């Protein structure tokens, strides 16, 4: 009796482990395939599957870093990489700053229409940004903001604000009331209290949302396509890569290397800041 119970348990444990390992394998395989392929020679890529290279992994003549060199220089992914940085860093800092000031005001200041405006922020959270594209594009054209970094920063700021304000409000409004009141009693202005007290205390929330906004902007295609365009001096990685899929659709050595270049920074962020990433997910930082 006891033995058969133990056996049953062993069988169920083993099948559980097999299932888990199989799922992890399946989920990782696509990315691994692209990663391995990006180091393979272009003719080998065209004639054999990437898994055949694994039959003799230590045959170093089959590995090359040429694909990366080619895709970075002659296909303009190097410039696109810089452009993506120029778009992403301010488009992360600006909305967080604007949202943090607003969240502080909603939480700790009194002004007419406070409740109404906060309800507006919540209502705008799920509005699909698609509804804004045509009017904003027309406005940008008349203002000469089309194809400028400033235009894209502000667009990302506008579209990211409702979520940012809501999440930071949730955090900032929960800070201990005594702490802020004693700061005001000591003569601190709202600005000082915000910069010296609230911002440092809200760092976990800011970091969590910051990671999401950063990844969201880095990975965005639609906004950069509409407001920045695809000309090579401003195009970002996603735009260049999708253009590459269109024009060099069969050149897998370039596409795989290009895909990996575009994933490099998000993967680095993911592996180094995973804790904040998960915390942000649980706080609801995902764009609706």
């Amino acid at each position: 009796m006891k033995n058969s119970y133990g056996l049953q348990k062993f069988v169920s444990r083993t099948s559980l482990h097999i299932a888990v390992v199989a799922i992890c394998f399946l989920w990782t395989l696509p990315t691994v395939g692209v990663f391995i392929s990006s180091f393979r020679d272009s003719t080998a890529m065209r004639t054999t599957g990437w898994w055949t290279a694994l039959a003799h992994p230590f045959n170093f003549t089959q590995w090359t870093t040429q694909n990366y060199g080619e895709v970075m220089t002659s296909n303009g992914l190097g410039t696109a990489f810089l452009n993506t940085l120029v778009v992403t860093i301010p488009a992360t800092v600006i909305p967080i700053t604007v949202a943090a000031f607003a969240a502080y005001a909603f939480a700790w200041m009194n002004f007419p229409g406070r409740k109404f405006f906060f309800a507006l922020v919540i209502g705008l959270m799920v509005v699909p940004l698609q509804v804004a594209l045509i009017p904003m594009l027309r406005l940008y054209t008349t203002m000469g903001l089309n194809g400028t970094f400033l235009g894209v920063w502000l667009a990302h700021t506008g579209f990211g604000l409702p979520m940012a304000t809501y999440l930071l409000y949730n955090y900032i409004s929960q800070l201990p009331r005594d702490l802020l009141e004693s700061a005001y009693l000591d003569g601190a202005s709202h600005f000082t209290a915000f910069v010296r007290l609230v911002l440092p205390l809200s760092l976990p929330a800011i970091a969590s949302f910051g990671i999401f906004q950063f990844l969201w902007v880095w990975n965005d295609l639609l906004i950069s396509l509409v407001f920045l365009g695809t000309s090579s001096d401003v195009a970002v990685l996603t735009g260049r890569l999708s253009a590459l899929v269109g024009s060099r659709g069969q050149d897998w050595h370039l596409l795989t290397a290009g895909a990996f270049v575009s994933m490099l920074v998000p993967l680095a962020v993911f592996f180094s800041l995973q804790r904040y990433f998960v915390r942000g997910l649980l706080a609801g930082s995902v764009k609706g």
Partner: protein
Amino acid sequence: MLIEQPTPSYRDAQGRLRSRPLRLLIVLATFLATILGFGWGFGVMRDPTTPRWLVTSIALLIGVLGIWLLFWLANTAVALLPSERWQQRLRAWVFVGPALALLLIYLVYPTLQTIYLSFMDARGDSFVGLDNYAFAVTDKTMRSAFVNNIYWLVGVTVFSVVLGLVIAVMLDRVRYEAFAKSLIFLPMVISFVGASVIWKFIYAYQPPGRPQIGLLNAVVTGLGGQPVGWLIDRQFNTFALIAIMIWLQTGFCMIILSAALKAIPGEIMDAARIDGADEIEIFFYIIIPALKTTIITVGTTVLIAVLKVFDIVYVMTNGQHNTEVIANRMYAEMFRFRNFGHGSALAVILLIAVLPVMIANVRAFRRQGQ
């Protein structure tokens, strides 16, 4: 005993300079310098002969420091007002004003404008009534876009939530949970474009007889089948695209559901086990009821994300071979065919689709009595 003399200070208790004219001067000077700096910076950035590194550095400087400078300036300017009451009144608007202005410009105004444009013709010149909506529901491509969107909504939501839940429950019982979780939610940080390249490679097709470099066709031919053009064959292509989104979203569902799962008190499950419940019964009679609200929230989030899916279709097939979806068609109408009326009507349809979620959110907020 020497009593220390208070040194005469140029600053008051809040660290500001005592002399109001001096403060005014500093604010004005900083304001002018900011404007000039911005003007110069944008001029240099526009100049095509400027080296890349300079453009990059200037852009980062303006983008990151500029916003703080503007807030500081506005706040200092308000502090210069002679009336204490006006300072009080305006200070809140320094904090919340920029956010509200941006929301009005980038979301409220364009939404209203888009609704207006959806009743106008292609160029937005003359009123056409409901023609654009009639197009949206009668056009042949649009019909298939709606059908495909329903496949997407149901397929991605159901599969990623169910898979996410099952994986969360399974991982809860193994010791290498953290590592396995990382592997499964790693795709979340990959862009839709990057994921599209990854999967296009998996779906790659070579005519029969030639070696298959796409993993899926290699498996199919390895098992003795004929290679399939996964992205061309109308039987499979939409589902091939849906699989990508499931791959991306399952990790998200798993993380959220796993956190909720850990919040279920262990005693409840232990008690059920002692009463003779097996794991399947525990899953259906304890875990699922306990996670009901989380499942609904997660499902809604995925649903909204899927509704707006654009990048995957745009990169993989651009809506050809019967794979069109609303968001991609909207982009095409707007920017390829330049038909603002059609594009706006489709955008409004997306807006109407998320309206229930919007109303539920605002109501939930009102109920909290804030």
